[in-house]
């Protein structure tokens, strides 16, 4: 179980719905470990600012996460979390292991768009 404030994807249907119904999606697939927790917290912090992106997590040890783990973009990935960025249902970027706020923002800005400040 992931103790985060992000929306959890519990099964393949949740995943399909998330990527088909939203244009810009970030999904963090991990455990409650030291490399994963910082990335969840970064996503939680960015949820408000990046209102045009939907943020989700999925437990790595949930068998249903094979929908993410089996994606070709994970070839060579050997560090949690696996983080995926989907645009219109297609993976546009994926990273392995811990990422900094700057790294996550850089991907969100380049693959989706820079948030418009109110």
């Amino acid at each position: 179980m992931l103790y985060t404030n992000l929306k959890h994807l519990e099964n393949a249907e949740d995943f399909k719905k998330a990527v088909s119904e939203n244009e810009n999606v970030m999904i963090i697939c991990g455990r409650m470990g030291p490399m994963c927790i910082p990335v969840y917290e970064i996503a939680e912090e960015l949820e408000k600012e990046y209102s045009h992106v939907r943020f989700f997590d999925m437990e790595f040890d949930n068998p249903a996460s094979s929908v993410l783990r089996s994606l070709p973009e994970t070839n060579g990935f050997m560090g949690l979390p696996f983080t995926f960025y989907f645009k219109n249902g297609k993976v546009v970027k994926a990273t392995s292991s811990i990422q900094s706020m700057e790294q996550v923002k850089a991907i969100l800005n380049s693959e989706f768009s820079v948030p418009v400040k109110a």
Partner: protein
Amino acid sequence: MDTGNHYDTIVIGGGPAGLTAGIYLSRARVRTLILNEGVAGGQMVLTHEIANYPGVETISGYQLSAIMKKQAISFGCTIKSNISVRSVDLAGEIKKIELQDGSAYTSHTVVLAPGGRPRTLGVPGEEDLRGKGISYCATCDGDFFTGKDIIVVGGGNSALEEAVSLTKYAKKVTVVHQFDHFQAFEYAVREAEENPAISFLMETTIDSFEGKEKMESVLLRNLRNGEITRFKTDGAFIFIGYVPNTEFLRGIVQMNSSGEIIVDEQMETNLKGVYAAGDSIVKKYRQVTTAVGDGTIAALAASACINEMKSKKKQTAFGYN
């Protein structure tokens, strides 16, 4: 000055030292802001299980961090995480901290608790292969190396304990260490030496990591004869200690040659009203409990300093000297 950004105390760092300072200061009705570059809990969230925190039988570092953060917030402390400090001006009576996003905060006192981070080797290939063969967490990534040959870099307790733990997954673990002896405790050395899946390369350092999509090999340098050899491996776990996050304080507060902040028994630095606590100060033992102790002292001292300032101001206002 934007008074909305002015606090009695600003705490830089949200690990156990910073959060404890936040709890004590806020509870004492001191208007407190914690500016935290990473996630609340700092290095503590890296600990899978804490079994020696008095009063708590066992708890994960993440849970203990979450409780401390909740406590601090419940007393009125403001916490801003994932920020990046651009500059600090701590010399005057009003301390000023500027963030990379352009915002600025001021305060009467500051508690520096920036903590530390895992030391990296800084050799070619290390950054590119992070998550593709290089890891700093055996608990997180160990199972990706099931049936594989890996190396563990380091010679302290963490390196040897994690090497033993990684034999649950890896076929063969080679410990690479720069010295001819280990810094780990005797029990950890014995346990590693007695494990048939572990072998050792002493007086050896890593020159570079090689591989494109994943780790393929490392270039090892034998420190006795300078010989460089290519060593095939599927992964590397690096446990070579921690470095204090004090680069932004260089030339501002007094530090030792290792970049650790020098404090007195009140946790005060060489600057009046500037305190420091936790893993970033000069001390021998770095534990959650010692960080909590440092944070408590720093908070009480900062609180006393603010009370002194306020009472001086009152005396001046009433014409006392």
